[in-house]
């Protein structure tokens, strides 16, 4: 795990609802606590509005609403909610240099809709903003030591990461192509980037994880990191103990024990399947049953990750 913490772009990818935001937030806190300047990014198609914030990272960090622009929320820890519309504006400004020219161009409705027809433009500018911060320098050194992405869930996440490769096949030479080339170069560089998979140990998430892993290797050719097996239910009773409970406790109590163990069995079975099939190191994270909210879950996962790192360091020292 340690080696992976030195990479400057860490992507957390997986199916919806598996805990990507939790992992991103916990890993971000951990790195920031170790003195690194960390930028945590998420991507939201919609700007915040009366419906409320769609942002997932602030709740995971126990924070109230955070502005979408890069904001330092604790020493060394920065948040950014990338929104395609705003990212497009930034991108155009980067190209045209003059704010007035940008306003004129993007203020023109026909031009805006014309731009929308550019294949995957929204993905290009979104990914472009993220990767810009990976290579951005301030006074000679990198502005951020690590950029972490809480990736959109499976389908969209993978198509986002694959955008440079796919577009490079069909776009004619020109400024956009040049941008896609440096973006792709960062993504495929195993000394810079690691794509971590996050999953639950259940049938469908594990299947998707295996498919994701295969797709990352080929056709995407992106460097894979770890697989986080999240929210594992502990196994507490073996078959003979369950029989003992069945005979010695009233049925509602036995039912609870059996039900809890049934879920643990599903997890154990799927974890075994993951271990058998996936060629990545797997980090097991137990479910935090009593964590009352997202921030408490993040704190728990952060402590688990810290313990794993210490354990790893101790194991290395003793070798």
């Amino acid at each position: 795990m340690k080696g992976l913490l030195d990479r400057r772009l860490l992507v957390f990818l997986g199916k919806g609802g598996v805990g990507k935001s939790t992992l991103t937030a916990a890993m971000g806190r951990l790195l920031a606590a170790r003195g690194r300047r960390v930028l945590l990014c998420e991507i939201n198609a919609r700007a915040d509005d009366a419906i409320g914030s769609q942002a997932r990272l602030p709740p995971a960090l126990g924070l109230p609403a955070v502005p979408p622009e890069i904001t330092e929320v604790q020493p060394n820890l920065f948040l950014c909610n990338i929104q395609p519309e705003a990212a497009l504006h930034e991108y155009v400004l980067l190209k045209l240099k003059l704010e007035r020219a940008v306003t004129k161009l993007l203020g023109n409705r026909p031009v805006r809709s014309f731009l929308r027809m550019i294949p995957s433009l929204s993905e290009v500018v979104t990914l472009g903003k993220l990767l810009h911060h990976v290579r951005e320098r301030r006074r000679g050194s990198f502005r951020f030591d690590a950029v972490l992405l809480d990736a959109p869930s499976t389908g969209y996440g993978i198509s986002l990461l694959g955008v440079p490769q796919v577009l490079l096949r069909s776009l004619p030479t020109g400024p956009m192509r040049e941008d896609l080339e440096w973006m792709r170069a960062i993504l495929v560089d195993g000394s810079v980037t690691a794509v971590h998979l996050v999953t639950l140990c259940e049938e469908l998430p594990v299947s998707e994880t295996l498919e994701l892993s295969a797709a990352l290797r080929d056709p995407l050719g992106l460097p894979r990191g770890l697989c986080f097996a999240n929210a594992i239910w502990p196994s507490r009773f073996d078959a003979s103990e369950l029989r003992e409970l069945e005979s010695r406790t009233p049925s509602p109590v036995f039912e609870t024990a059996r039900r809890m163990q049934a879920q643990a069995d599903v997890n154990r079975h799927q974890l075994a399947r993951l271990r058998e099939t996936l060629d990545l190191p797997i980090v097991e994270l137990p479910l935090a049953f009593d964590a009352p909210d997202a921030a408490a879950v993040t704190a728990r996962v952060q402590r688990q990750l810290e313990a794993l790192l210490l354990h790893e360091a101790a194991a290395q020292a003793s070798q």
Partner: protein
Amino acid sequence: MIAALPFASRRLLVCIGPGGVGKTTLAAAIALREARAGRKVLVCTIDPARRLANSLGLEQLSGRETEVSLAGLGLVAPAPVPATRLETPGRLFAMMLDLRRSWDELIDRTAKSPEQRDRIYRNALYQHLAGALAGSQEYAAVAQLAQLAQDRDYDLIVLDTPPTVQALDFLEAPTRILDFLDNGAARLLLAPAAMAGKVSLRILSLGSGVIMKSLSRLTGLELLRQLAEFMLELSGMYDAFKAKAAEVKRLLGSAETGFVLITSPQPGAVDEALAFAEILRRGALPLRAVVANRVNPMPKLGLRESPEALLQILEQLPGELAGRLRTAVEDAESLATRDARELERLPRVLRIPRLEREVFDLDALVEVGDLLASAASSEKLSVA
């Protein structure tokens, strides 16, 4: 006879909700339940995972409607006995909406000539069109759905939607596509020569030299030219697109359509579900039911409700086993308490308890459908 679900009485049910909550499974369970109640039902998924296909007893879902054999349920006499239906005349069909094919079909139906269709297919940009317009995939899927609703005689079509926050876009997709086509972009951007069908670099008359220059610094001239060409092709199909989008929009808002919001009791999922509900409300789209899947049940005999009784039971057990049992009960109570607290935020939510096995087959889908029916009847949903 099995009773129909009270919220499924409309002709088109759209299942929406955050990812990872079991939307596809519930869509299939609703469809199966309605088929058992005697209706002719189609379930459309956009989930390429094989699991739904397998749980329906099919090898794979395709872009064509495939009938699901309900024989295994003991409702229909097995072949070769000639269709002596034991209980239900209902039928279930399943298909996968192939988004790419949806677009192709849309172009097929809309193109003015085979030549125009082929020019569009060949255009490099068309290859990426699905990604180019936000929500366009969803739009194409809904357009295909509208076609099915129009052409076929299903009593009910259940649609499962994409598993991302992006799925929110599909509700607005018809409007957005209309907006995109309706703003006169083609007329303003393309020179008269181009409108007459002559394609060259000079077809672009992008309002002013400044804008043209700015755009080309962004994209390069060659991409601009390709874009202009493509826009020219599409602009010819404008009226047909517009009619289709309006039809889809009408269908989604009509009395024939209802939405089922599916979530899990996880805090993040409930937040997203509330956002979905708000979007439906704003669009005046009818929310027919809110379903929470995989809810952790409260132990019937636990530390919170009846601590003395449980402690007495624990005393009878070997210390170590008693300790583990106690932790298990505490953990179950923590989860159930958290779920109950989260679900209070959702109005009239139907709770489906977490099943002990994963849903792999028709029998499990029947079980989910039955749980849904009993939750609905205890919530006393009106049939109106």
